[in-house]
């Protein structure tokens, strides 16, 4: 059993600085779980509590069936990969990888076998005699992962392991970590990042965490679920706004009434949009927020949708071309411009008036407290 269970976990640095509030979470056997959130949300602190490097103020942490709150880090059967690699600078790559096993008094032959096997998996065999300072960033990261592998842990912990690498290497190492997960299916993995792309690419389960006032008000966990569930069915405005780049478009509106196919909302610019959600708890005229992702705003001409229903017409204020796609910035009706992501160059230019269809199923509706209304 390598499941990890956190029950009622709280953590504060001093009386006035709570960083983790009311975390209840279960990470299943062999699951790849990503802690995601903005700076200061406590994701690294939560990981370090699982590792045993921080103690929880209250609550309980279990690894498998064992409560580990008072268990030393080395006895938790976890291995951690640090953001800055944390390789011992005075030891060779081989010694770095063997150090933990030597501490555990593992027989020499066994240490040698495990180190060479890990080096083979990570393709760092030619580097075993080198010192860490003679390695590139990517090589150091592999050694750090190798040091974790040789311990054959039940749980792998990654604390922003790719954030010190350049963009190209980050993508490469990301795929290597995914491969590692496939090679060690029995081990659970917890991975901390602030990069939603890494989270979406790697995770079986994402735990999105609140920071600051939201954490104090709603607890640390904003939403837990599969990556696409969080992306397509965000529970609140924070989750909707955090995932996706560019961020989801938010348009202030008022609730105009519930009908069979969903809630009808009136935008301040005059359009009416039907969102397939249950708005029965809302009073007529209640303030709501309509959310539409940039890639779901399709140019009416291209989509073939009829002008009128579910259509937003705005003046184009700017266009950014990226070759494969373009961002079209639209003025009017919102404090920040709406952004539409269109294929190719889109054929738009600043000053044009353009109409975009917002397919009903891709629209989200949030009440005045920012909570998403459930889809029908």
């Amino acid at each position, binding site marked *: 059993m390598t499941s990890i269970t956190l029950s009622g976990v709280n953590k504060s640095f001093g009386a006035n600085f709570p960083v983790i509030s009311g975390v209840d979470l279960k990470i299943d056997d062999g699951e790849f779980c990503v802690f995601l959130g903005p700076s200061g949300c406590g994701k690294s602190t939560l990981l370090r509590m699982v*590792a*045993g*490097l921080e103690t929880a103020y209250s609550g309980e942490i279990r690894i498998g069936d064992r409560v580990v709150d008072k268990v*030393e*880090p*080395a006895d938790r059967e*976890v*291995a*951690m990969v*640090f*953001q*800055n690699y*944390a390789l*011992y*600078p*005075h030891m060779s790559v081989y010694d770095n990888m063997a*150090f*933990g096993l030597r*501490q*555990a008094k593992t027989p020499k032959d066994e240490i040698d076998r495990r180190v060479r096997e890990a080096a083979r998996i990570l393709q760092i065999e030619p580097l075993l005699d080198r010192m860490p300072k003679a390695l590139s960033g990517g090589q150091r990261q592999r050694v750090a992962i190798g*040091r974790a592998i040789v311990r054959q842990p039940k749980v792998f912990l990654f604390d922003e392991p790719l954030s010190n690498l350049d963009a190209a290497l980050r993508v490469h190492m990301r795929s290597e970590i995914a491969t590692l997960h496939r090679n060690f299916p029995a081990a659970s993995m917890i991975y901390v990042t602030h990069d939603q792309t890494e989270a979406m690419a790697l995770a079986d389960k994402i735990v999105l965490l609140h920071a600051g006032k939201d954490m104090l008000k709603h607890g640390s966990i904003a939403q837990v679920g599969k990556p696409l569930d969080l992306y397509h069915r965000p529970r609140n405005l924070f989750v909707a706004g955090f995932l996706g780049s560019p961020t989801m478009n938010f348009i202030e509106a008022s609730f105009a009434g519930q009908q069979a196919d969903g809630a009808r909302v009136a935008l301040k610019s005059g359009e009416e949009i039907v969102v397939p959600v249950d708005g029965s708890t809302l009073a007529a005229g209640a303030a709501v927020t309509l959310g539409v992702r940039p890639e779901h705003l399709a140019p009416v001409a291209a989509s073939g949708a009829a002008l009128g229903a579910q259509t937003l017409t705005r003046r184009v204020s700017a266009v950014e071309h990226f070759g494969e796609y373009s961002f079209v910035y639209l003025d009017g009706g919102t404090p920040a411009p709406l952004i539409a992501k269109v294929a190719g160059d889109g054929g738009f230019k600043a000053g044009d008036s353009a109409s975009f269809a917002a397919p009903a199923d891709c629209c989200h509706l949030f009440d005045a407290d920012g909570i998403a209304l459930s889809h029908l």
Partner: protein
Amino acid sequence: MATSPVTRAAGRVAVPVLGLFWLAVTTVPFLFMVMTTFKTQQESYASSVWALPEGLNFVNYADVLSGPFLAYLKNSVMVVVISVLLIVLISAMAAYAFARMRFRFNEALFGLIVAGMIVPIHITLVPIYLMTRDMGLYDSPFALVGPYVATSLPISVFILTEFMRQIPKELEEAARLDGCGPFAIFFKIFLPLSGPGLSTVAIYNAIMLWNEFIFAYVLTSSTSTRTLPLAIWDYQGQYSSNIPAILAVVTLTSLPLVVAYAFGQEKIVKGMMAGSVKG
């Protein structure tokens, strides 16, 4: 801040000139000392003070080395080696605790130890003399080890604590995950990584203790137990009119320091600068 070309040109000239001036100030007395040791007593009286010796005359060195100089040297080496080893070990362990362990009064205790630097050693002479005598250590080279270690610890702890604070916390955490307790972390991670800091402390203290006079003067009295700084004192009485012989003693005494500084100056400067700039 922008500087004018004139200022920059003046700087380019002034820095080497001042450097050469300072080199002269520090080197000339040293050269004078070495040069004079090659003169005979008569020669030193007859010729000008700055006159070159007539030849490489080692008679003063032979004279000095035929006396109890080697006994003084042996005592100095023994006392300095034992003291420095103890200072390095104790101050490194204390520095690790101050730099890395969270405990009540950590900062207050650190402040108290560092404040020890401002205590003038002269006010401790009488109590230390009485304690040494009561312990039966008076007039033994080992009497010097205790006071030497005690008076050197504040600066050593200060230097090493600053040094160890710069060792990334993640290394300690990685070691904890690898199964190390506090002692294993100290001996297997922090001690090897503190090499430059330990060298600084060792070299700095070795120089200070090699030249230490007042404790050696108060706590020892026989020729067989005294250290080199007292040798100079003794020779001053013995060769009161033989300046080349006295300078031969001084040259032989300072030789180990010159060698140590020549090989260790980079480490001394680096260690002293630790923590002053972000790396």
